Structures are given as C-alpha cells and as structure tokens.
C-alpha cells in the first residue's frame, strides 16, 4: 500500500530524512523514535503535504506528489497541529470536513462518540485543552474512513482513559487492506495493538519489527 524508495528530504541546510526505503502492505505500524528523528517529516511526505527532495513515495501505486483527488480521499492525516479552525466549534469543524469529503452527519456523531468529545461538540476548538484538540483532530482524520491513516503523536497530552479511547478508535477503523502509520515517541501505547514497529533515528529507518507471522506487514531497507 505504502511504498517508499530512496526517500530523501532536505530542508535548506538540514537533512531530515536520509535514505528511507519502506514498504507497508497493510496493518497498523508504529513509527517510533526520539523527537526530531524525522517521524513527522515521513508522515507529511506520505500524506503528500511535503515534496520529497528525491526518491519515490506512492500510496496504492499512485505517486503522492501527483495531487490526485482519489488518492487524497483515501488518506486521513492528523498532524502535529490540530488542523482545525479555532473559531469554529468541534461540530462545525467536523461537519465542514464531512461536507468536503461527502461523509454523513451520522458519521460525525460516530467519530465524536468514539473519541469521547461529544459533550464538547459546541465548544470552539480554540478553547479546548491540548488533549481534546488532539482527539478532535484524529476524529477529523477518521471521518471519511480513509484507507491510509497517518497520525502524528495522537497520544500526546492524553490521560490513560483518553488514550484507551484513541486506541479503540484506531482498532475500530482497522480493516483488511487498510494501513496506518502512527508516530509516537512513547511506544508503549501503540505496541499493544500494532502489527509492526518501525524505529527512526536521525532521518533513517534503523530497525523494524513485524509481529504478524503471515508477514502481512513487510518492510525492506
């Protein structure tokens, strides 16, 4: 599903990703590593938000740089920032994106309930705590039931109860053929249900581990 070869990302004088080769066919993969390792950069490239300096990245066979609309429909991304409008309420934000993706209002209720933000639906996003913003952001990424889910630090600022909700929402989304990349520097929470773990350090994939014996998740480097 996600195919990365020879990926290199340079920001001016700094090299964020050196030479990443990675293939993920399906399943949930945790992306582990310290801050500044290149996890966020990798997610942004796969989402098509960042143009690689060199190398090829494709999702479902379509290059992510192609700005293909059918490809964008299949991607759900929640980045470092919430990606929501501060002055609009949680519900208004989700309804807006539901309209843009062609998802229903029922679906809006479902994701809000999954992430436990239903009781804050009328609150402007700007007034939410960091943890609630994160949940609302992931709710937005799940809204259109994407085939590829890219989450950047979804557990940041979450207490145990909220973290469990987050994991459950991802597990509920999980289906055969779908693939998720979840970046987090605290690996503990993702490890409990991830099919594979990828460790990134200083812009390189330094190790990976596959849990599923059938080898549905495979990485190469």
């Amino acid at each position, binding site marked *: 599903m996600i195919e990365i070869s020879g990926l290199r990302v*340079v*920001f*001016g*004088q*700094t*090299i964020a990703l*050196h030479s990443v080769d990675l293939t993920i066919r399906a399943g949930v993969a945790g992306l582990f590593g310290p801050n500044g390792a290149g996890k966020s950069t990798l997610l942004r490239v796969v989402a098509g938000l960042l*143009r690689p*300096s*060199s190398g090829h990245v494709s999702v479902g066979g379509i290059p992510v740089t192609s700005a293909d609309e059918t490809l964008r429909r299949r991607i759900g991304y929640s980045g470092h920032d919430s990606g929501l409008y501060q002055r609009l309420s949680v519900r208004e934000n989700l309804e807006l994106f539901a309209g843009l993706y062609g998802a229903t209002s029922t679906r809006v209720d479902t994701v809000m309930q999954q992430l436990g933000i239903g009781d804050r639906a009328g609150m402007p996003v700007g007034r939410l705590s960091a943890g609630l913003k994160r949940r609302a952001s992931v709710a937005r990424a799940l809204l259109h039931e994407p085939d590829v889910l890219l989450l950047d630090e979804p557990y940041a600022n979450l207490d145990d109860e909220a973290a469990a909700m987050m994991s459950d929402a991802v597990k509920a989304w999980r289906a055969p053929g779908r693939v998720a990349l979840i970046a987090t520097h605290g690996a503990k929470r993702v490890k409990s249900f991830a099919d594979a773990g990828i460790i990134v*350090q*200083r*812009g*390189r*994939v*330094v*190790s990976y581990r596959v849990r599923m014996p059938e080898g549905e998740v495979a990485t190469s*480097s």
Partner: protein
Amino acid sequence: MSTSPPASSPQSKAVAYLGTAAWVSVAIAVVMMFVVAREATDAMGGQLQRIFYVHVPSAWLAYLAFAIVFICSIAYLRTNARRWDLLAHSAAEIGVVFTTLVLITGPIWARPVWGTWWQWDARLTSTLVLWLTYVGYLFLRGLSSDPSRTGRLAAIVGIVGFFDVPIVHYSVNWWRTLHPLGPTIADPTRDSGLGGPELITFFISLSAFTLLFAWLLALRVRLGHLEDQAAEVEAWEDAAPAAAPAPT
C-alpha cells in the same frame, strides 16, 4: 543534485570566450556609435541621439530576459527541475538591470529633447510597470520563508507579469490616446530616420549587447550552481556525524 564543472572545464572556457567576445564587440559598438554613426537631426536630439544605441538594445534585452523568465517559470512548474528555476532567477536579475538602464538612458535623452524627464505615455509607463513587476519578483525571492518553495512562488509572479505587461501597455496607450494632456510623443525608433551607417551601428550594438547579456546570464547561472553546491556540501557536513551506517 546539481553538477557543475570545475573551473577549468570546457564549459567555463566557453564562458570565458563568450565574455571576451562580448567585451570586444561592445568596444567596437562604442567606437561605431561615435565615429561611424552620423549626428542626428536636432528634433531627435543631435549628439544625444547616440544614446539610442544603448537604450534600444537594452529594451530588447529586457524583453528577451523576461520572456526567458516566463518560459523557464512554466518549465520549472512542470518539471520541478532546479535548472529552470535558476535560469529564470538569473534572467530576471539581468532583465531588471537592463530595464533600469532603459529607464535611466531614456530620461537623459528626453530632458533636452522633450523638455521633460518623464511622460506618462504607454511605452514609458509600461516599462516602469515592467520594472516594478520584476523588482517585486526579486523581492519575493529574497523574502520567501521556505527556500524549497521560493522557486514555485517566484515562477507564478514570472508568469503573471508576462501576461500583465501587454494589458498594461494596451490600456495605458488607450488611456493617453483618448486623454491627451501633453505633447503627443512620436515613436522614437520609428521616426529616427536611421541611414546606412547608423543602421549598421545599431545592429552591431544590438549584437554586442546580446553577447553581453548571454555572458552575464551564463556567469549568473554558474554562480547559482556554485551556491547550490556550497549549500549541499554544508548540509552534508552538518549531517556527517549522523551519517554512520545504521544497523539493520
């Protein structure tokens, strides 16, 4: 990654030859301007008319430069290849230099001949707008907050500018034709009444300036390549401590 030849490569020799040819022909053109070309009529400024051997080629090259910016900008957006961006940037800088030359030499001639430094006629106004547009282009390049996107932003300005200038020229022309406020200005090149020696001088001058333009462009592109390489090396050195092969 950019590749540029070392200083003694055939390419850099070609640039050196081009430079020599440009300066020799500029020297010839200058001599011809003053020796071969005859003095013009008083209506065209007498001695001063010689400034047109600099003024008109500069204007042509400014247009050529901005046409190059336009074409390279489109090519850059399509291919994302750095060489097009570099060529567009280089051409824009040199185009602004030549447009500045046009805007300086014009008034020097106009002051004694028209009795005024400036007239808001179509050609003058649109040249000024042209200059402003590409000065804006260079400003944008300088102020961009993300170097990897500078080229794309600038390319859009390069494309918009190319479409805008004909509309400016057309509308100003129309505006002043309908509302004559001062003396109407005859097209200076058309009424110049160039004779044989003057025409020859003009074309030699035009060729000389074109060579000069080509040389400057080649130099500027080379400089850009070298800057890119320097940045690459720096980035590589910065990253070197982290570049130890990872265990897999």
